[in-house]
């Protein structure tokens, strides 16, 4: 995978992946959808309301024109008499404000009887269905849009028309008035532009606010995530911060779980320890008792006690490793400290041999696991080295790569040929009965190391003896 893909994929997934996977995304998308819907509805209502009221105002003005024309009109002997009304804009040619009076003749055609000067001889367009619509709404005024008297000049009009009767004539007249619409259209457009721009800004602002709110609001959750990660990485033992009421119970449960884990491990350990104590003292008694006698029974007891001792050690070790595998959270053990205390102790134990343990480990190197286990692992290795060494034991520890540490224990003893190194790791193998101890040291180390996902290997040391190399998980610095 290229680096760009590695970076862009999580980013893309973060915002456009399945919303169910991220609380942040879910909250932000939900709030954004609601904000956009609400703002669009608001925008539509505002603009249509504005347009409606503008048209209503125009309708009133048209009604006034019709009323003026109507009130001046009368039916004389020569037919309909319509004087010009006192509105200057209906006089000027093509001023944008017009009126017209006509009638529907016997054939259904429309005859114009009078018109405003502003029409300059043109007529307002009357479509064929208009007379019927007017007849149906007799006496009322209907308004509608019209492309204009001179369509090529694109002066759209708003037209009001009404069918009324005048005294002295049975057949009704059609009164029409028209006003140019472009100004209102422009107003409406401007209003709409303004409104939508304002709403867009508001919407973007709100979405940003939601984003910030979610980020700030969910921060405790992010903090909790970081803390849990720290516990896992061994940088902290527990969740330490205070959290808001909603997630404090979660933090407490995590802590309780950690405690419980710890408790289970401790209980296992104690149990195993008690069992060891309970079995080993009687075994000591049997061994000692058999040792004082040279009879055949004593020989059998002694041999069987040895086997039992081996079995007890083996199974206790298994139990310990199992207890360890069930755990593995949060512990961080300083390596230099453990090596130091073991070195001090073992030099004293092997004082008669004058063994010198030369150790090097950085102060900030920490093992990601329990102190007892590191003591067990290194204790057995260093003890073995001391046992076999002539005088010198060298212990060095350091980091290796990501999250790993290496510890090397070497001695200047006789060492082991390659084929015996394999065998010595196996349970119960004792290469030399003269060396004190059970010979189980290395396989205990191997079991524990494996339980931590680490590795133990044996090689030849340049000091002349055996070199044990341990790979173990390291805690982050």
């Amino acid at each position, binding site marked *: 995978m290229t680096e760009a893909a590695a970076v862009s994929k999580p980013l893309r997934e973060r915002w456009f992946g399945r919303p169910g996977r991220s609380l942040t995304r879910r909250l932000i998308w939900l709030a954004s959808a609601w904000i956009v819907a609400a703002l669009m509805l608001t925008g539509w209502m505002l603009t249509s309301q504005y347009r409606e009221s503008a048209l209503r105002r125009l309708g009133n003005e048209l009604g006034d024109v019709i009323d003026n024309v109507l009130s001046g009109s009368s039916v004389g002997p020569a037919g309909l008499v319509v004087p010009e009304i006192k509105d200057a804009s209906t006089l000027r040619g093509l001023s944008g404000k017009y009126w017209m009076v006509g009638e529907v003749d016997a054939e259904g055609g429309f005859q114009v009887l009078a018109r405003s000067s502003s029409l300059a001889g043109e007529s307002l367009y009357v479509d064929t269905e208009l007379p019927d619509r007017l007849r149906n709404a007799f006496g009322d005024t209907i308004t509608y849009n019209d492309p204009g008297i001179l369509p090529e000049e694109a002066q759209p009009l708003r037209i009001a028309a009404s069918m009324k009767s005048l005294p002295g004539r049975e057949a009704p007249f059609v009164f029409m008035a028209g006003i140019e619409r472009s100004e209102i259209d422009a107003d409406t457009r401007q209003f709409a532009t303004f409104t939508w721009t304002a709403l867009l800004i508001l919407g973007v602002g709100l979405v940003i606010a939601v984003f910030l709110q979610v980020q700030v609001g969910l921060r405790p959750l992010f903090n909790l995530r970081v803390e849990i990660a720290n516990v896992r990485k061994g940088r902290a033992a527990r969740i330490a911060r205070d959290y808001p009421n909603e997630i404090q119970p979660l933090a407490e449960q995590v802590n309780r779980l950690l405690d419980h884990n710890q408790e289970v491990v401790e209980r296992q350990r104690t149990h195993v*320890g008690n069992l*060891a*104590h309970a079995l*080993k*003292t*009687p*075994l*000591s*008694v*049997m*061994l*000692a*008792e058999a*040792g*004082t006698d040279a009879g055949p029974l004593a020989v059998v007891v002694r041999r069987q*006690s040895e086997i039992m*001792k081996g079995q007890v*050690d083996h199974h*206790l070790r298994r139990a310990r490793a199992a207890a360890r595998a069930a755990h593995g959270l949060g512990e961080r053990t300083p390596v230099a400290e453990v090596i*130091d*205390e*073991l*070195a*001090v*102790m073992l*030099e*004293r*134990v092997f*004082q*008669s041999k*004058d*063994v*010198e*343990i*030369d*150790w*090097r480990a950085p102060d900030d190197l920490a093992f990601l696991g329990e*102190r*007892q286990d590191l*003591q*067990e692992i290194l*204790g*057995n290795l260093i003890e073995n080295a001391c046992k076999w060494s002539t*005088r*010198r034991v060298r212990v060095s520890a350091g980091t290796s790569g990501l999250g790993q540490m290496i510890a090397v224990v070497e001695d200047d003893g006789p060492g082991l040929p390659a084929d015996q190194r394999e065998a010595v790791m196996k349970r119960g193998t004792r290469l030399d009965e003269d060396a*004190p101890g059970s010979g189980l040291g290395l396989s205990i180390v191997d079991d524990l190391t494996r339980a931590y996902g680490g590795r133990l290997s044996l090689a030849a040391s340049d000091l002349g003896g055996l070199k044990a190399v341990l790979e173990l998980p390291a805690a982050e610095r």
Partner: protein
Amino acid sequence: MRVLLVEDDADLSRQLKQALGDAGYAVDHAADGEEAHFLGDTEPYDVVVLDLGLPKIDGVSVLERWRRDGKTTPVLILTARGAWSDKVSGFDAGADDYLTKPFHTEELLARLRALLRRSAGIASATLACGGLRLDPRAARATVNGEPLRLTSLEYRLLHYMMMHQGRVISRTELVEHLYDQDFDRDSNTIEVFIGRLRKKVGSDRIETVRGLGYRLTPLAGEFEAA
């Protein structure tokens, strides 16, 4: 040689008493921590065999009390658990050797002989430098009465510096006196050990004299006490 055997298991006690007696020791036996502490406090034993799992007061606490009272009798601890954490805490409390149960009686006797040989080394006077004390006979050092945990190299370093306290000691001189001839002589490692020793005895006690070496001095105000 007088040995104090502290073990609560009756059978094991009987056997060990028998074996120790046969090996020529005068054996006193204590079955719990209280009795053990009392006997160890009042009688001058040459060596103590101390089981860690005891009724009333546990073995580690008994040992801690003895060491706090200034008893330097070598102590071998017996532990059934075999866990290194138990051994380490035993040594922190002042043990000199350990045996994990079950063990062979011969091995116990061999270890006791080694302990006695060790403690019978040439007796020399305790060295002091302010609150810092070093007892070459028991190979133990204390700061203000608190026992120090030192590796043998650290111990030798401190011993040498205490014998030459107040004087500037060069790194080369330290290398020459600390390592025997088979060791790689690298004067840079002295810095590492001085660093570790400083952490254990208190960093102000060891002064670095730039370009010359190191000097061990009592802390200011400790002269009167010393």
